């Protein structure tokens, strides 16, 4: 009976099993065929026959480099699949790397590669023996992959394989074929220099009929040359109708890293944008457009138009708020504009929080009027920043509704280059200019004050166009350069009032003030959402709305929520305290933070300074030196940049400081009774040149020591030949930070 049952069972499942086997078999056959097709595709492009990959030796000048890329070729095709009526991108990359160093050998013994349509590694010994690496023991990798293996062209999961018998002097020659389905367009800005030298490299783009392709090279990279013979179509056939662009580059040195470098302006790079046929670009459906530049003015109207659509919901809310506040009737233009900006900021944060809560699955706002009526997470500030085209569209619309004329500016941030260098859409930002105030306004984030400058835009170039002319064709675009930031726009100020205690530890009362870039980078440390939004609502709600909120506040359900939020605020405040304590530890020999208070958050125009007062205790500044005390006084200005000798001697690139800035320190130190400071003359320093300054003054009045230091980076960008001037200042600041004085009884 039992045997019969087993037989029956086998009989029943056998057809299924067979069918599953057939299915699996068909899949394997299909996979194999696809793999072979891709392998042929690779061989047709630069496979075994490509003589450029026969190179086996590195030029003598690179013999001491850990690795040398003997040859690498990147071939990307933007293709049309006429059968499926679709578009896709197919890539082939082949690299041949020579291992010259033991450390590199250890790195390459575990070789990483991405899931690809076809992939292979060949291991070549110095005597020419070749061996294909068997990948059957490869394992999937989910953790970090060394940066060497990532590229800008391919995004797939990684595997790793241990390479047997790898020795110094060996070559690994590997390739991959891959396809990418981009949802929209391809925008690529990529250097052609790397952390290793390259003997020869080709970057090839094949562009199928109807695809749009914009390309160029910069900073000394060789130009793309169009190959009259054409490129390869989706079936691997060489056809003249496929446009081929080739960049050939030889003897590319390894990148040399330097601090304060805008790599897009200094390293040889390519910029490429590929748009599938019929893409909506520059105000129309484009086909077959191939250019080595783009006209950014053509992108103006579509960007603002899509911004208007995206911002429609918030626009309605803010418009209502502005009406209830009677903004249109305000007399002072400046106040009116600033109110519009801050109201838009409030509704943007609120909307973003609702959105965030929605995607997290926890409804955040039970009552849209009041920010405090939350039922979900308000643990911490989430940084929100509005897309600049959305901001420009909304803000200019709101200004217009409130009778303020404005112009929209289209700007290329300096780290991307200048207007004529733009190839991709991501290089463009938008803002709003109000001529009557002669002032630029930049996109919103949680904290930005309307009077703040945007240091990314300072000194950048672009165009501006009047809002009223937006819908007309044939507008005139005025060229514009955004004023560069001054050292006085970005100030970090630290004031310490120090009392030395009997045990030589310090009681410190400190006030920190930040503007501009410094404010931006400290906002999220010191501020948090709940009180911010409470103040925003208080400032930017009409009396009628406030009354409505008050009525809501009397509800039992609200009181419960309010109570819970108060507890959360307490815990958040404790969190902040610890965060600030950790931050202070970075600069001072902090023992304990007693308390802190945000004196001003700098989010409204009447005060754009972020100011914090903190009381803390510190130790380790004073130590016994024989019968006296030694005071590690230089440490009070915190860690300074330490240039090494090589860096001091040589600068190869323009110094891109990002923004001009000032760092001020002011210390008032009450010494223990009966002590007098000696050696303070060494604290008086004055290095001041056209580009930078470090000035310090030390005075003693009774038992009070007063020290003021100012460190200034006067320019946002400095030519490399002026490097020594910056070095002079940096070395002075470092020297000050190392100074010690003696306190004698």
């Amino acid at each position, binding site marked *: 009976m039992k045997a019969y049952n087993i037989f029956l069972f086998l009989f029943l499942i056998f057809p299924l099993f067979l069918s599953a086997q057939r299915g699996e078999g068909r899949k394997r056959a299909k996979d194999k065929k696809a793999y072979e097709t891709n392998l042929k595709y690779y061989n047709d492009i630069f496979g075994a026959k490509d003589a450029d990959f026969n190179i086996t030796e590195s030029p003598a000048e690179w013999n001491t480099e850990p690795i040398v890329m003997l040859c690498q070729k990147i071939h990307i095709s933007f293709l049309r699949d006429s059968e499926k009526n679709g578009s896709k991108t197919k890539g082939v990359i082949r690299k041949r790397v020579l291992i010259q160093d*033991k*450390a590199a050998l250890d790195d390459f013994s575990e070789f990483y590669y991405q899931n690809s349509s076809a992939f292979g590694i060949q291991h070549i010994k110095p005597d020419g023996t070749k061996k294909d690496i068997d990948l059957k023991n490869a394992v999937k990798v989910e953790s970090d992959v060394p940066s060497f293996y990532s590229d800008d062209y391919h995004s797939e999961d990684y595997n790793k394989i*241990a390479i*047997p018998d790898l020795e110094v002097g060996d070559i690994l020659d590997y390739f991959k074929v891959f396809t990418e389905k981009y949802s929209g367009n391809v925008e690529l800005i990529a250097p052609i220099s790397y952390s290793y030298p390259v003997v020869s490299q080709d970057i090839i783009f094949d562009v199928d009929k109807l695809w749009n392709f914009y390309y160029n090279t910069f900073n000394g990279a060789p130009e793309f040359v169009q190959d009259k013979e054409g490129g390869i179509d989706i079936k691997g056939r060489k056809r003249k109708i496929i446009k081929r662009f080739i960049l050939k580059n030889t003897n590319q040195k390894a990148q040399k890293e330097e601090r304060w470098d805008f790599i897009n302006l200094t390293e040889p790079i390519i910029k490429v944008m590929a748009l599938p046929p019929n893409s909506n670009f520059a105000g129309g459906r484009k086909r077959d457009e191939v250019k080595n530049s783009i006209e950014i003015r053509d992108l103006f109207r579509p960007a603002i138009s899509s911004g208007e659509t995206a911002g429609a919901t918030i626009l309605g809310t803010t418009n209502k708020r502005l009406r209830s506040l009677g903004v249109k009737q305000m007399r002072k233009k400046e106040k009116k504009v600033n109110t519009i900006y801050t109201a838009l900021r409030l509704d943007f944060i609120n909307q973003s929080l609702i959105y965030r809560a929605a995607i997290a699955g926890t409804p955040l706002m039970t009552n849209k009027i009041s920010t405090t009526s939350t039922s979900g997470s308000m643990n911490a500030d989430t940084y929100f920043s509005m897309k600049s085209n959305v901001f420009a569209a909304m803000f200019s619309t709101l200004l217009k509704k409130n009778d303020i004329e404005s112009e929209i500016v289209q700007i290329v941030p300096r780290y991307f280059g200048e207007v004529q260098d733009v190839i991709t859409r991501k290089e463009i930002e938008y803002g709003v200019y109000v001529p009557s105030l002669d002032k630029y306004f930049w996109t919103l984030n949680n904290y930005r004050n309307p009077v703040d400058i945007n240091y990314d835009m300072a000194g950048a170039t672009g165009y501006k166009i009047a809002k009223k002319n937006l819908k007309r064709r044939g507008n005139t675009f005025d060229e514009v350069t955004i004023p560069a930031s001054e050292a006085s726009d970005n100030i970090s100020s630290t004031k310490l009032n120090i009392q030395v205690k009997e045990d030589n530890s310090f009681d410190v009362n400190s006030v920190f003030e930040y503007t501009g870039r410094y404010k931006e980078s400290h906002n999220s440390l010191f501020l948090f959402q709940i009180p911010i939004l409470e103040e925003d609502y208080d400032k930017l709600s009409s009396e009628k709305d406030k009354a409505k909120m008050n009525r809501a506040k009397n509800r039992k359900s609200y009181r419960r929520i309010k109570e819970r939020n108060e507890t959360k605020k307490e815990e958040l405040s404790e969190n902040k305290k610890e965060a600030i304590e950790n931050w202070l530890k970075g600069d001072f020999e902090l023992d304990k933070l007693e308390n802190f208070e945000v004196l001003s958050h700098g989010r409204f125009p009447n005060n754009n300074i972020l100011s914090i007062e903190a009381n803390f205790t510190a130790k380790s500044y004073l130590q016994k030196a024989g019968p006296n005390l030694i005071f590690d006084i230089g440490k009070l200005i915190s860690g300074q940049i330490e240039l090494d000798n090589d860096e001091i001697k040589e600068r190869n690139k323009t110094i891109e400081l990002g923004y001009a800035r000032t760092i001020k320190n002011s210390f008032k130190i009450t010494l223990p009774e009966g002590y007098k400071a000696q050696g303070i003359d060494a604290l008086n320093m004055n290095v001041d040149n056209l580009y930078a300054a470090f000035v310090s003054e030390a005075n003693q009045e009774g038992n009070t020591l007063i020290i003021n230091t100012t460190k200034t980076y006067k320019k946002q960008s400095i030519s490399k030949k002026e490097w020594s001037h910056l070095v002079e200042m940096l070395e002075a600041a470092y020297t000050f930070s190392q100074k010690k004085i003696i306190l004698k009884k």
Partner: protein
Amino acid sequence: MKLLKNILFTVIIILIGTSIPIEVFSKNESVKDDEKVIIEKQKKVLTFFLNKRKELNAKLTVTQKIISKTTLQYKFTRSVFFDDNSKIETITKNANRRTRKVIPIISDYESNGIFHSDLKVCYFEHIFKKKGEEVMLKYEKIFTDLKFLDPLYFNDYYQIDDSEIVIEIPEWLKLDVRELNFELETPEHSTIEEEKNNIHTYSLKNIRGAFRNKGEPRRSKINAHLILIPNAYKVGERNVKLIEDVEDLYGWYASLVDQIGNKNDGLKELVVELTKDKTDDMDKIKSIFYWVQDNIRYIAFENGIMGFKPEACQKVYNNKYGDCKGMANLTKEMLILAGYDARLTWLGTSDIPYDYTIPSLLVDNHMICTVIYDGKKIFLDPTEKYADLYNYAFRIQGQEALIEDGDGYMIERIPSLETSHNKESGQHNFSINESKLEGSGLVKFTGNRKTYILYLLSTIPKNDWEDFALSYLSNGDKNVQLNLFNQPTLKNRDVDVELSYEIKMENHIIDLGEELYVNLEFDKQFENFEMPEERNTPYEFSGKYFIENTSTLKVPEGWKVNYLPTAIDEQNEKYGFSLSIKEENDTVVYSKKIEIKAPILDLKDFSDWNKTIERVKEFYADQIILNKK
């Protein structure tokens, strides 16, 4: 041997308890991460059963009642590990009076240092939304091969109010239960004898969260836990023997060694080549040992049985990579070809506090090769790159080793070397020139310190060696400028590494006109090494240290010594700090000797240690005062 698998187990335990806060405050939370939730009650129940094939299996059921202590939202995550010899079943959570099945995410576990293992992670989470919220979490882990049974710990990443371990031992099972570290934490133990089971219950209350502190010793060294060794079981009248003693353990290891399939013919030529010019046996042994160190890269595969079975010598040789077992086996085969008595050797590194009185796989995590020459044993660890002969790595010193011995085995303890064997010693001679200290320096590295430096060099491109050496010697201090007279090299590991240089130090002199304040110290070792008051676990150093430095200062013409810092000499069985500055014939001589003699500082040592560090700090800051004559 499953290389490092036992170490990994500790990592696993860390991860089991790891919870990641959902919000950006993670770095700076005030309610500390481990305090955000507590486990009010944890219960682990281990039962044994026979599967359909009458093989012994075990089921561990873990339940935890977890309560949120934060008003903020908190993501509690749990990663439970399993491998080819275990599986995770039935994960449920009970929250808001509803019990739900949890669908975990399963993925391979990746660990630094292990290329691939069979270890998998079963990951699940619960988001706590408010303070006081409770969740009851439950999961079951089935062990299908009881050689690989996990040790049972009472503690967790989070604080536990009440932790209970219940072991139900059926009458047909002979189980060896070992209680470890019960003298450090004191669980209560009770036994109930039932008709068919003996039920052992252990409980421990108010347990602090584990893995709180930097440098915390492994749990196996400081926390109470149980190791369970099933010795034998009965199926009907049949008695099935498992591992009962070290002989059984060795028997299992030996059965794997029998399956290796070494074919050492291909190695003969290499062995001849390596030894042909050598007449001294030690030179021959060295040449083979060093060749394996230098030419076989350590790449660890811990996949299933390969975690315990050495790879054949020919495969490791051809691949030029292997794990500790493969490298030890290759070394052994090459030495045998050269005519030496070489044997495979199992051991647990210093991470593992057990010895072979516990017949468990948990005792071992490493394999080396032992050569018996002239009746003496030389322990060769080819994974220890740049180690010279007899320079045993700190991690294997003093550890018990299980060595092949014909059909049997022998157990031997690897010698512990004196602390002074691992030394970094320096000599600096300074004079004063325009308020700067100038002179020459020489630093010598010996023993493990030398191995460490050579290994570091091997991991960075040769182009960067000089920069590395300068940065190491100057302690990354811009005030200390060096000019090397000789370049570091990896060529000869049998001699000490010596680096000599010209040295200039700025900002080490305060010139007050009639007085000079001079400080010769620039390394300040252990200056910031106080143990915080709130620390509640011992501190484990990475090894034993011996640092010795002498600096001299020529007193300038026309000046005299007015003050010298008071010497320190703090010595005990765990550490020693001896710092002094003396005047000898117009020269000031600063001598520094620091010795870390024992790897673990216990809580009871902290107070004296902190006082010592405070004095050391004061000494480092104190000044030599010179006055004009």
